Each structure stands twice: as structure tokens, then as C-alpha cells.
């Protein structure tokens, strides 16, 4: 329909990643007791960022007809 879905996916996941990464950096380490001591917000945020940016790049690289 002319709207490349990769764009909103990329925007959403990049934004979610930034929220998680920033929160991961400033949050109290005590909250990670439940995630077995891993700072999962920071770590998983980076994974989301890679995915989000890849989707953004894909939507820009090959614009739909």
C-alpha cells in the first residue's frame, strides 16, 4: 500500500531500544537480582537496537516502488 512496514518496525524497535538502554544505564543494579544478576535492560536493549537500525536501513536502502 505504499507504506513500507520496515520503517515503523525500525522506528518502534529503535525507540524501545533507546528507552531500555538509557534505563539500563541509570537503574539501580538491585533490580537485576530477578534476572539472575544480568543487566538485561542494557544487554537486550542493544539487541533491539541492532534489529531496529537494520530495519530502518533496509527501509531506506530499497524504497518501495
Amino acid at each position, binding site marked *: 500500500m505504499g507504506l513500507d512496514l520496515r520503517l515503523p518496525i525500525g522506528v518502534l524497535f529503535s*525507540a524501545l531500544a533507546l528507552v531500555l538502554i538509557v534505563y539500563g544505564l541509570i537503574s539501580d543494579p538491585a533490580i537485576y537480582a*530477578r534476572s539472575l544478576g544480568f543487566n538485561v535492560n542494557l544487554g537486550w536493549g542493544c539487541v533491539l537496537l541492532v534489529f531496529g537500525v537494520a530495519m530502518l536501513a533496509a527501509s531506506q536502502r530499497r524504497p518501495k516502488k
Partner: protein
Amino acid sequence: MKFTVVDGLIIGLYLLVVIAIGVALRRRTKTSEDFFLSGRTIPAWVAGLAFMSANMGAQEVIGMAASGAKYGLATSHFYWVGAIPAMVFLGLFMMPLYYGSRARSVPEYLKLRFDEKTRVLNAATFAFMTIISSGISMYAMGLLLNLVLGWQFDLSIWLWAGVVLLYVFMGGLTSGIYNEVLQFFLIVFGFAPVVILGLVDIGGWPGLVANLAEISQQRGFAADALTTVWRHTGSAAANPLGVGWFGIVMGLGFVLSFGYWCTDFLLVQRAMAAHSLSAARQTPLIAAIPKLLFPVLVILPGMIAMGLTHRAGGIAFPLKPDGSLNYDLAMPLMLARYLPTGLLGLGITALMASFMSGMAGNVTAFNTVWTYDLYQAHIRPNAADKHYLHVGRLATVAGVLLSIAAAYLAARFNNIMDLLQLVFAFVNAPLFATFLLGMFWNRTTGHGAFVGLLSGTIGAALHHGMTISGHGVPGIKGGWIFVAHTYPSEMAQNFATAIVAWTVCFVVTVAVSLVTAPRPAEHLQGLVYSLTVRERKEPTAWYLSPALLAPLVLAAALCLNLIFW
């Protein structure tokens, strides 16, 4: 479960993007076909992921984890025997007819192939059923959010239904499909950390097997009954499902799964929206790839939750009023246990997204069937296309309001809903026999199809009325005529009901077709398999060609069944 500003921010971002997509699509939705079938422009990968998530409503996500906790790995029968072969069959053999006939809905295909009465029977029951199932899943979600997050039941129902209404109203099916793809990625990214942390915590797969072995033995099964799929299906009593291999293969694998995946318009609509015939055929095949792997994300967490009940400081399932464990809380309990503020918001957003897209899926299928198969066919034919677009938008509003009403009905009169679901199960069970004969046996007639469908439904009702499962009391669980046979479990009884319905429909359809006038061959072009022009070679990437994808997906399903035999 504590819900903080950061979690709220994550849900807020998701809602913002969903509504933005609706707004962006509104301008592009000009004709009724744009609204109901996305103008047949959707790329195969988008249609495929939407096809996969369209059946992943919150009820399914919650339910699969619950079954994982209750039945263990055997739950993956719903994927590796249930879904995959049916999806492959749809892609290879049925999509060319659905898509090639240019039917705009599954009931419309029935009209083209058979006659008006068969279409109306299918369209009316389908439209009614979408509303009921949308209402039931809304009710389940409202209840869950209330239990887990303390959100008010009324507020969550009206709020989430409002969002769904807003985006479907603006962008129609395209909004629905786009949101389903978002939901797919949210579920992957929202649930994967829970699975990883849970597995690390319990000591990997070997640790899980060891923990579940004790639980399995306490319940009177072999040690590996909760962590294998086929080994204990020789006797229904030896496995937690309470169904033997024949019931699993024929009832679930053949009748129920083919009936659902190949004829349910909610799913087929996603493939019909694809931009070309080859993309439409690829849709269910692409969907099958994540479907193979999804047990890891939705069933495994339930199994881990069950395994953890065994450990000091592990998970404790709350009890239901009747004293049984409330397995439905498996997934929320896992989210709450492992995810800190932040990722917890992502997990909840994934649940929300599947709730909303489940509802949107029902609403988009409802407005299409209502507008094309009931309104245009019987109430006002030959109006301008703009008129049907308008009616579709109104039907969207009506569909959402009716779903809300159904949700309250479910909250007030749970047994009415159980009864309705039962009746629909009778109506649906024989459907695949009708499609199979219609598509592959040219002699099948409209009268045959119609009488066959009705007989199959009656057959299902009679079988249900004369049998019961283990500890059931005659009534809604069966045996309301008299009890002629007792099945080891409710699931075994359901599978048997489906097999009976299918067989009755098949036999009666053949018999009636043989004594009624056949349709001339020139009216069957493109509607039956043998009279359909084979697909011209459309340019498509070699790795997406059905001839390669189909055997690959089937082989992978076979391997998974063997690995976890």
C-alpha cells in the same frame, strides 16, 4: 507485579506507532478492496508473518503456555502435527483456487464453487463466531490484566477495544496486518529473554527434563512423559494429553487442523491480500517457518514454570476456585519472575499486542464477510464501491461494539459462551470435507455440499450427546442424550467428535452429489484443481519458491518430531 513509568513508556511508544500506522494508511485506503483486502498489494513476507500471528491472540499465547505447564512438550503436537502439514497443503494446493478465482472471501469462494445457500450458511456462522471469539478473548484478557496488574476490567476492555477500533477503522485490513507483524516481533523480543533466563535458571534442557520427570511421576506417568511428544501415545492413559496417536494424527492433525488453517477466513484473508498468486502461495509456507520454532517461545515458558514449582522459592501456581491449578497464569508468572522494570514493559506490551491483534483479526474478517457476503449479496447489491467502503467502516464499529457486548456476556453468563463455542465447534468440524471434495472432485454439487455440511454438524452434535470424557457430568461436556461411550479425556472426545463430523459430511456430500445434477465443466474453471490453469512462472526468489519451501518445512517438522520423539 509492579508496573512503573518506564513500563508505561514502552506501552505508550507501541500505541503511538500503531495509531501512526493507522493515520498513514487512512489516506491510502480509497476503495473497498483497499479496506477489505489491502488492495491485494501485501508482500509475501508481511502476509506470512501476519498469517502466523493472526492466530496468536492473547488467548492462544496464554493458552499455549498453560498447556505447556499442564501437558508438557506434547503441546507441540498443535504445531508440528497440527499446523505445519495443513499450512503446507493450503499453500501448495488451495491458494491457487482461493486466489486464482478472485473470490474476496472464503464464503464467496463457496458461492462461486457451489451456490448461494452454502455461502450464506458459512458466512452467517463465521460472522457470528468471529464476534463471539473476539468477545471471549477480550474477557480473558480483561480478567488477566485485572489479576496480574490490578487494572480495572471495564477500563482495559474499553481502552484496548477503542485502540483497535481506531486503527482498523482508518486502515482496514492493512492496519490489521501491519499490527500483526509488529506483534510477531514484539512476542519474539518480549518472550525470548524470559525463555533464556528461565533455561539458565533451571539448568538448561537437562535441568528441565530432570525437574519435570519428578512431577510427571507424581502424576502417575512415566518420567519422560512431559518432555517427549510421541513415546507414550501408544495408550491414551499413558500420556498427559489423554489421547492416543490415532486421535492425535486424525483428529488434531487432519480434521481439526486442516479445517482451521485451510478454511478459516481470518487466516486465508491474509494470504488473499498478498500482491500476487505466487506471494499468496508463499504466505502460509513462510508462516510455517516461525511456526515450527514458536513452541520455544510459547510452550517452553509454561514447562519451565511447571518445573520451577518443584524448587524452594520457585513458582507457585495459584488455585482456581475449584481447587485445580490455574495454569493460565504460567506466562504472566514467568514474566513477573524474570523481567525487571523495563523489559517487563516489553513483555506486557507483547501480551497487549497479541490481544489487540487477535481482536483486530476477528474484526477485519467480520467486516469483510458482513459487507461482501451478506450485505452486498442480499441487502444492497450494485451500489457504488464507495458505499461498500462506508458500510465496511460502519461494520468495524459495530463489530467492536458487539465484541464488547460479547465480553460482558462472557463475564456474566460463562455457560452461554461455553454453549456457543460448542455449537460452533459442531459447525466447523465438517468444513474441511466440503472444501476437499469441492476443490478436488469436480462432481461435487451445491446440494451435496449444503446437505453434507448440515449432516456433519448434526453428526458432531449426536456424537457429543452420546459420549462423555473421564470424570465429566452429562451436560455441556457431552452425554446429554445418553452415554454410549466414555473417552479417557475431554481432548480425546473433541478429536473423536471432529473425526465423526468430517466422515459424515464426506460420505453424505458424496452420496447427495451423485444423485444431483453436476455443474458443467465450464462453470468450474479456476474453481477446482483439475480445471485450473497452472501458474505462469512469476518472477520470485528461488529460496521462496513453494517447490523448495514446502518439502523443507515438512522435513524440518519431521526432524523435530523425531528429535523429541
